[in-house]
């Protein structure tokens, strides 16, 4: 049952990601990205991370992707012209780059495989309070540092977007 669900949503996820690249219209790409994010949320849920699944839907597909579609609608972006946008540098550097990245990642994964833990698909759920205990007690300092980092990023965006006042 869980394995069947896993394969359905994993396939949906990969199909959404491919569709995101192949679609010509930006709004279709944005919608495929939403499909990817929602199927990722289901995969989290299958691994027992229910809070993470809900946060994934609320934050990514509910807030961030709405902003994406908002910007696409506001700019009224039309269909992209494939013939113009294929640059030679991109295809020359892109494919070897992707191959190198995949090789590096699989090398790191295979060499560190012994140290990585495993988890099973199934009924066990991590409760929200257990997650909060890890996040706000054991990993408090990294968590707070990350939030400061995000705050700095927001301030930077505001500073860049602000008009010069004369």
């Amino acid at each position, binding site marked *: 049952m869980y394995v069947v669900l896993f394969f359905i949503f994993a396939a949906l996820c990969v199909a959404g990601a491919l569709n995101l690249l192949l679609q010509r219209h930006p709004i279709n790409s944005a919608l495929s990205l939403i499909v990817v994010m929602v199927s990722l949320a289901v995969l989290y849920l299958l691994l027992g991370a229910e809070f993470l699944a809900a946060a994934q*839907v*609320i934050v990514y597909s509910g807030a961030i992707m709405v902003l994406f579609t908002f910007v696409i609608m506001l700019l009224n972006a039309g269909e992209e012209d494939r013939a113009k946008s294929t640059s030679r540098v991109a295809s020359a550097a892109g494919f070897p780059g992707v191959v190198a990245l995949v090789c590096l990642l699989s090398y790191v994964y295979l060499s560190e495989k012994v140290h990585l833990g495993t988890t099973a698909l199934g009924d066990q759920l991590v409760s929200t*309070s257990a997650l909060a205990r890890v996040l706000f007690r054991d990993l408090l300092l990294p968590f707070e540092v990350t939030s400061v980092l995000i705050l700095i990023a927001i301030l930077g965006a505001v500073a860049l977007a602000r008009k010069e006042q004369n």
Partner: protein
Amino acid sequence: MSTILIFTLLSLIKIAVVLVIYLTAVAYTVLLERKVVGRIQNRWGPSRVGPFGLLQPLADGLKLFLKEDLLPTEVYRPLYIAAPVIALACALTSIAVVPFGGMSSFHGVQLFDIADVNIGLLVILGVTSVGVYGIALSGWASNNKYSLLGSLRASAQLISYELALGLSLVGVVMRAGSLRLRDIVDVQSAHGLLSWNFFGGLQFVGFFIYLMAAYAETNRTPFDLPEAESELAAGYHTEYSSMKFAMFFMAEYANMITVACVATLLFFGGWSSPFGHLLPDNLGGPVIAALLPIGWFVFKVFLFLFLYIWVRGTLPRFRYDQLMSFGWKFLMPLAVLNIVATSLWFAWRTTLHP
């Protein structure tokens, strides 16, 4: 019969019953709104179809079914058709995690909810946040400037008020120590009215923030700028007709009912009676004792729906800049202050009585 078969069968029956009741409630909320707004504006409201106009929803539904389904030539078809489906599907899904009565199981299946989820509150927030796409895409796919402006307003408004909405619920979650809706109600059911989050939990500020943010989330007056008829024709659903328009209409009222349900569950004790133990627990036999809580729940939800209509009949619409500054500069800081004050209160209480 095996347990999984019984579970599936009972779940399907529950879904069918809740869906029928929910859709009927949606239809009669529309009638209630037309009647009450009519009386507020010194006229009768619908009164011709059936006794007191009670069959008006049936006539409206029939009319919308039989109208011609126009498809403008310049629309982007896949999204134009998908948008009302997304809006209605998300609105109807959110009722699935709402519990509306106490624990009473039959063959190991809970009778008075469709699904009892540990993170029920987050599921409701997540499903309603996905529902934004119905409105956003409808305006864009219509290829109409009024529709586009309406849906741009809607998405900006929903993103802005979702923050205040989420933050206003934190106090309630802190008191219950759980995101499960049944736990949140159980915390409030000890001493009737006095232990409700609104009174005993001291969450009245949180409640008013929730109420205002929820009115904005459901695009209701005074926050109905996405469909401001004097500026935008009908906003995001200008190009829709027949059943597609009806789906948006139903989604709006279904969302209203969900908001009323959540307000009841989180701040007004859900299905628990306001009199606490003043009423005997087994009043009038086991069947009535099981059904009376549902009566309380429906009564509270009805009061919230009435409040919605009352507000619509009373308040004028916000201006757009007022809407934004109200959400970001007033509701957001107030919600954060509410969280800080609530957590300080809980910390003080636990140090007094450890």
